[in-house]
């Protein structure tokens, strides 16, 4: 049995107070807090190993290179990638998605082609396609979202007909919806389309297996999975990565450079121009160690339990005043609770909650098309992770009372 109280103690930020009251951090879908081991791993890197990588033959340069490449291997194992050189480091999921769009998309998409995404995508999986479509003239098609927050797959075959790529989130950052990725992959492949999975919200919370997903590409971001900001990545099959033109140009990604032109390095370095974020990679490695130590199945179990508890407590206490968006069954969703409270604007809800130390995000959560579909301009969102417990939920439920008090309309 995991000692979740001990887990919480591993996170130094959660010991601080705000406005004279202990902090209750419920914004992990936005960014996660970091265990001491992750923070210390980065400090130790700078204090004992720091050097540029792939360039030096001296001791610490060799160790720094090993550190970076060992984390690549660790990430590959963590997502069950067939090979380590299929993991490309980027600064975040957004850059990974842009890499995919510009490099693969730039080489493969043109007039008459189509890319399918869904209404529940994060802007990171929308805007790069808008930008590329404007340049290349392909069509962007949208899978609708039903009132209860699921993908409407009734016309999937039609949407995929003639499409070259389906790019879809594994878990909605607004609704918590878990999408049926293997089924979507099977459908995409049946139509000779590839499938890219935005797993930014999935990898941190659920054991991830890119092969079982049937994915061709997958993106993730370190800061949502207990790791530092400034690192994320793209995974894709080696043959696909090898077929793709480079993305950013510069050092590291070349084999030869002359005044006339250049040739590219092997994958994955072909896509990693410039000095990489080695310390952040080290931090990400420590984050994966931390998660593996807990066990991803145990993490998931904890979050499903807590999500259930949250849905029950909020509804019990606030009844009709609160509307929680997304799937109603905790086991079918992630620990992301987007809610609308009475007539109080989410921004005001968040402000009132902040005064009680409770951190939730209010707004469109970088998913404006989804909010339009839901018919709300904004929601408040409480999202859970390994360090949360029932007392955090209780605190959220209680402090919502003040919102009623102030804004009783």
């Amino acid at each position, binding site marked *: 049995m995991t000692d979740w109280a001990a887990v919480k103690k591993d996170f130094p930020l959660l010991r601080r107070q705000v406005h004279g009251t202990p902090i209750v951090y419920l914004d992990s879908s936005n960014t996660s807090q970091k265990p001491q081991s992750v923070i210390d791993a980065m400090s130790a890197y700078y204090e004992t190993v720091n050097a540029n990588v792939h360039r030096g033959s001296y001791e610490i340069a060799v160790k720094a290179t090993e550190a970076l490449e060992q984390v690549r291997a660790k990430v590959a194992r963590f997502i069950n990638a067939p090979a380590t050189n299929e993991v490309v480091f980027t600064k975040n999921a957004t850059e990974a998605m842009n890499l995919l769009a510009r490099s693969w998309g730039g080489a493969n998409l043109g007039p008459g082609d189509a890319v399918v995404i869904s209404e529940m995508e994060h802007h990171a999986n929308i805007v790069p396609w808008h930008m590329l479509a404007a340049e290349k003239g392909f069509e962007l098609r949208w899978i609708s979202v039903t009132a209860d927050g699921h993908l409407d797959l009734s016309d999937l075959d039609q949407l995929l007909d003639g499409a070259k790529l389906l790019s879809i989130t594994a878990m909605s950052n607004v609704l918590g919806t878990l999408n049926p990725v293997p089924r979507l992959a099977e459908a995409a492949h049946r139509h000779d389309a590839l499938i890219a999975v935005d797993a930014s919200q999935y990898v941190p919370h659920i054991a991830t297996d890119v092969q079982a997903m049937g994915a061709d590409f997958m993106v993730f971001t370190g800061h949502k999975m207990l790791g530092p900001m400034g690192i994320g990545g793209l995974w894709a099959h080696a043959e696909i990565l090898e077929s793709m033109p480079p993305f950013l140009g510069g050092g590291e990604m070349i084999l030869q450079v002359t005044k006339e032109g250049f040739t590219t390095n092997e994958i994955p370095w072909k896509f990693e121009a410039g000095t990489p974020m080695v310390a952040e990679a080290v931090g990400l490695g420590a984050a994966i160690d931390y998660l593996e130590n807990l066990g991803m199945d145990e993490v998931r179990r904890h979050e499903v339990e807590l999500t259930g508890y949250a849905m029950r407590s909020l509804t019990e206490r606030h009844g009709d005043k609160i509307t929680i968006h997304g799937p109603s069954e905790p086991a079918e969703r992630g620990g992301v609770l987007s809610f609308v409270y009475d007539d109080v*604007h989410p*921004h*005001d809800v968040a402000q009132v909650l902040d*005064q009680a130390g409770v951190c939730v995000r*209010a707004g*469109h959560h970088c998913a404006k098309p989804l909010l339009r579909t839901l018919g709300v301009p904004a929601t408040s969102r409480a999202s859970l992770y390994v360090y949360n417990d029932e007392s955090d939920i209780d605190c959220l439920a209680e402090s919502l009372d003040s919102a009623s008090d*102030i804004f009783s309309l």
Partner: protein
Amino acid sequence: MPGLEDLYREIILDHYRSPRNRGELDTPPAVRAEGFNPLCGDEIVVYIDVDDNSIINDVAIGGQGCSISQSSASMMSAAIKGKTVSEARKLIGAFKGLMSIHEGELDGDAAESDRDHGPEADPDIRLGDLEALKGVVKFPVRIKCATLSWNTLAQALGEASPV
């Protein structure tokens, strides 16, 4: 709730609950401008009808947003109705003066915004009820909520009566 009295003053909540000049105007003769707060998704629409003497004959506010952006828009509409364009412009300056202490810092361009906001708030300009929004500066993120309608008004004025 302790700590929030400065933000949620009674007069602000009153304007939030009963917004003044809510609606639309026909364009033309009115002009219409739209503003967004990318942070929280607030959207505001400002309509103004300016006559030949540069007087703001009518004003209407659409869109949706939080208590701060809505009450600020409501108070603004009441304050500018019947005023001249140039009086309205001065009011924008004065209101931004009230807010600018922190807006600049938040955007990380204090230097710039000082320049943008022009001369120090004119002592002749009376903000009246709007003074109630002063507490917003203690909550830097909300300054953008408070100024949203004003920036949108500036846009509308620019269209109705280019300088």
